[in-house]
């Protein structure tokens, strides 16, 4: 289990991380969510010991950080990059050895992973000769080749095409099944919803929402309506009895004020748009995210 307790990090005039705690067990995926600048990256850097926290503790299966625990962690950073002029296999072996693997074991593993990703033919090429998608695969291989117990993935889907997104999702699920503790930071709510067991939403350096995906949805699920319609839905945003509305071109998600009945809402919509679907269900993570962030400690309204 990877456990962070009361992490705190102050930059010259910004409190980037303020009392953040979470834990993620083996075989679990923790979705770390939050808007840009919320403190996700700083939190991740503290967990990986790239940064020293001003206060708070990170423990790895109960052990404090040590040079040995470095080898238990795998990290895929948000901004991707490899040595452009270096060869694929050399690069992977370098990162593997930096995590304490022997070159010979690493080489065998590298072949396995590259075969899996269909990259064997590129093994001797320079990184810059590979397509962007293939470079991302190489980087992913480099971050998990040493079979880490804890895997930190920062925006793993950014820049991937749908085919590769599928491939990566498959591999992530496999990591989970093999008993890794995975921390998964993202803006993509649907991906977080599908992959995560637990969520931790950070805003302005503080945890504003935490729990299992099911619990969180249950908590927020009393008063949410999903619509599909034809016509101009602009009026939905200022509709009476609606606390929050997310309006798209032909669909919308409305969160109703307490005490507003769904029946009354339905009748207030009839005649204004051509309704094709009216569904009462749990809110999407996206809606919960927006709602929580807006109500957070530094909300603008």
């Amino acid at each position, binding site marked *: 289990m990877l456990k962070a307790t009361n992490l705190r990090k102050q930059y010259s005039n910004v409190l980037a991380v303020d009392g953040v705690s979470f834990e993620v067990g083996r075989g679990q995926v923790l979705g770390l969510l939050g808007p840009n600048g919320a403190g996700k990256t700083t939190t991740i850097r503290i967990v990986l010991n790239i940064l020293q926290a001003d206060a708070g503790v990170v423990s790895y299966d109960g052990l404090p950080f040590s040079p040995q625990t470095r*080898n238990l962690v795998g990290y895929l*950073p948000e901004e991707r990059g490899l040595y452009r002029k270096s060869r694929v296999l050399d690069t992977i072996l370098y990162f593997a*050895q*930096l995590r304490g693997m022997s070159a010979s074991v690493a080489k065998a593993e590298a072949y396995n992973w590259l075969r899996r990703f269909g990259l064997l033919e590129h093994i001797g090429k320079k990184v810059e000769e590979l397509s962007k998608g293939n470079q991302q695969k190489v980087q992913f291989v480099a971050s998990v080749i040493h079979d880490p117990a804890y895997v930190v993935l920062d925006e793993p889907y950014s820049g991937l095409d749908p085919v590769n997104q599928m491939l990566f999702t498959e591999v992530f699920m496999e990591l989970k099944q093999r008993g890794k503790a995975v921390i998964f930071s993202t803006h993509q709510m649907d991906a977080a919803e599908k992959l995560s067991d637990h969520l931790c939403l950070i805003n302005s350096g503080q945890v504003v929402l935490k729990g299992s995906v099911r619990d969180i949805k249950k908590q927020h699920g009393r008063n949410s309506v999903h619509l599909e319609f034809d016509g101009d839905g602009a009026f939905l945003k200022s509709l009476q009895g609606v606390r929050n509305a997310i309006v798209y071109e032909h669909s919308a998600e409305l969160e109703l004020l307490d005490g507003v009945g769904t029946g009354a809402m339905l009748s207030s919509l009839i005649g204004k748009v051509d309704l094709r679907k009216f569904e009462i269900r749990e809110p999407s993570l996206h809606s919960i995210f927006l709602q929580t962030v807006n109500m957070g400690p530094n909300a603008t309204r």
Partner: protein
Amino acid sequence: MNKAFVVATWEYLEKVKSKAFLISLIMTPAMMLMFGVLPTFFAQQEENVTQAIGIVDQSGNIAPQFSERLEDRYRLPDDQPRYLVRWIREGKTTDDLRKEADRMVFQDEIVGYLVIGNVAHGDSVIEYRAKHTGDFRLSKRVEDVLRQILTEQRIASRGLDPKLVSDLRVPLDLNPVKLSESGKEEEGGFEKVFFSAYVFLMMLFFLIFTSGQLLVRSVIEEKSNRIVEILVSSCSPTELMAGKVLGLSALGFTQLAFWGIMGLALSLQFGFDLVDPVHALLLTVYFVLGYLFYAAVFIALGSPLTTEQEAQQVNSYLVIVLVIPLVLALPAIQNPNAGWISILTYIPLLTPTMMALRIPIQMPSGLEILATILLMLVSIYGAMWTAGRIFRIAILSTGKRPSLRELVAWVRNG
């Protein structure tokens, strides 16, 4: 520190394969060869054609002797005369003669001509007129021959026998012998001392510089593509920095060994003098010290940078510091005991290069050697410590280059 070796191995292998390294490996000796050998080579090349020189001498006292002696004294390899002298006398006035001579110059019949004035009466200015007046060797030879003729004529005019005077003249050759305290004597010509000092300075300069640049470039690359985050989550910044310094030092030694073997082969092949082994040992010591010290300087100044352009700016400042001993080589050879040389020796940025300059010229005392080595060890420790404090923060900072004040704060607060 096992991971430092992983980093070192990587840095070494990746850099050894890089183009920049190969270029510096080959270019440095090539450039030294170019500066050292080519000018002499080309200068000697020209000595295989006969040149015609005109002379305008209305008195007729000098021209015949001049032509005889100049043609006699300087010969081509095939024993043809190097110079042919043409006495220009088709004309009445000096002006006429000059016009004729000018015409010959422009039609390339002669390379130039001498106008002998009233030398018999003490005038010692003789004009040499030509399209190109930059041939120093020609000027010097003409001057030598003319001086000899005029001197003899003056001696004869006082009633003495010129032959007697030339017999009485003492031939003298100053043979400089370099003394060292070990009691060994060594014939040390100016060229030899200058050349060996210069070669070492150049080598030190190029070694420090190529590796310093490689170091900064690799840090900038790792910062810009965020590889550094993976690196410092895998190993500590201290290990990373130590690995880089180690890897690049190994690179420097590869270069040094390559040049050393090349030099040895050349000297065995062509019978140059070998460098004194004591010198070589001491120079290697200063090499290592200078290398490590500058590695720290490059890390401290280079790791906060984020673009290649900024790196080039910082590099150009460092070039100036490193070039100082090269500029000072000449005055230092003329006066190795000057006070300012000792003072410069104790500025750590200059210590290795100044010592590399001084050792071949005049071996400094044992006390000075000990003192400078100690000074360098202390400086390296301090510089590495400072560089490490900066490096830890700098590798994660992007965007604006930190101000000097921020750098100081980084060092102070760690």
